[in-house]
């Protein structure tokens, strides 16, 4: 079985983002997706601190610390980009104007609940940022995460044990093992990495899965 690397996962997510999409990439793993968006597609990256048409990191030495992304790293603005204040920025998110967001996760449930902001540990200092707004606001919520924890437990679960970020909000899950859609009647496997059988994926995941119809798999490739 050949697991996807982080960059392969990012490239796989990027394939599902079409020309003209308004997209927010969450902090961490999803940030990698920007490196894999095809250069021949015009895609608008939104950053919740107040910019649209975010460009790549500036060359060393030309950083401007008034121009940062949600992760507080210096970025650039593409020609045609715009700045706006926080209430407008979150209106774009909450108001359903973003076509996609890509978020990392601790857990996703079989019905699409998302847990990605807080471990719930008693000594943890909670911080939420814009995660809850993205989870309920974007037209399509993509999650990108390792399929299993370091201990080998599935991060796709029947019910989330970590505190929720959003209820029934996830549409598609991209892992290092598979791509799954969250359908009304459960999880549908669209793709698996080479060498992984459906039965083995089901065993590793620990929740009921079903295979996409061939036509549906075809559309994904």
């Amino acid at each position: 079985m050949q697991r996807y690397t982080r960059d392969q996962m990012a490239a796989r997510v990027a394939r599902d983002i079409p020309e003209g999409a308004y997209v927010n990439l969450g902090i961490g793993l999803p940030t990698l997706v920007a490196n894999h968006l095809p250069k021949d597609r015009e895609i608008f990256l939104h950053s919740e601190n107040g910019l649209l048409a975010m460009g790549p990191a500036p060359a060393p030495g030309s950083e401007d610390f008034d121009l940062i992304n949600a992760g507080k790293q210096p970025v650039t603005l593409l020609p045609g980009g715009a700045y706006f204040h926080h209430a407008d920025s979150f209106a774009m998110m909450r108001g359903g104007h973003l076509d996609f967001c890509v978020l990392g996760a601790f857990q996703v449930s079989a019905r699409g609940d998302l847990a990605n902001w807080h471990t719930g540990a008693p000594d943890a200092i909670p911080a939420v940022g814009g995660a809850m707004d993205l989870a309920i606001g974007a037209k399509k919520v993509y999650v990108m995460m390792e399929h299993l924890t370091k201990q080998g437990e599935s991060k796709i679960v029947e019910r989330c044990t970590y505190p929720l970020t959003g209820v029934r909000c996830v549409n598609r899950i991209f892992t290092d093992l598979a791509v799954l859609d969250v359908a009304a009647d459960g999880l549908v496997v669209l793709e698996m990495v080479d060498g992984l059988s459906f039965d083995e994926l089901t065993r590793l995941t620990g929740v009921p899965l079903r295979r996409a119809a061939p036509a549906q798999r075809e559309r994904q490739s």
Partner: protein
Amino acid sequence: MINKIVPSVAEAVADIRDGATVMIGGFGTAGLPSELIDALIAQGARNLTVVNNNAGNADTGLAALLKTKRVRKIICSFPRQTDSWVFDALYRAGEIELELVPQGNLAERIRAAGAGIGAFFTPTGYGTLLAEGKETREIGGRHYVLEYPIHADYALIKADRADRWGNLVYRKTARNFGPIMASAAKCAIVQVRETVDLGGLDPEAIVTPGIFVQRVVRVAAGALAEPRAAA
């Protein structure tokens, strides 16, 4: 003649009293009004409630204010950062109260205060810990949480340029919470890099009209906050 420009940061913050609620603009250090915060530290007001997206970075700016232990409570969305050790220690010692608010609810609660809205229903946070105990309602098949505005006595804001009537333009993503905080506070105090004559700002490009601003103070460009590594 109306002139909202005051001569110094010390005068700009002189009347902030103990127990005040103070909004502080900025997202991390972008747009953080560091010189106004330093003036507030020197002024000495205590028992403050502070509203900011974060809870301070490293040992300067908002973190320095927290370190004085004059902040009773902070309302923010993202306190935990790699360099938030001042807040972390206060929080673990039980020396500061935290009201954690999803970032969009924070922005909209501030906007609502400035816009005269009594409360609003938002889908953000529904079904999560951060909505526990709050009124909810199903509207058009979707679940919403009732959230109330956040008003403030003062807002400390950093903009780029202002005129003597308090019209403001900002710089890049340093705009962040400035416009909404200016409208939500009884007294908005703004530090700017440059002041210009009336008419010197393009009326089509003014982001915060002067009606929302009470005081402006020019801070020399050289004294602007040093950029710091990302948190």
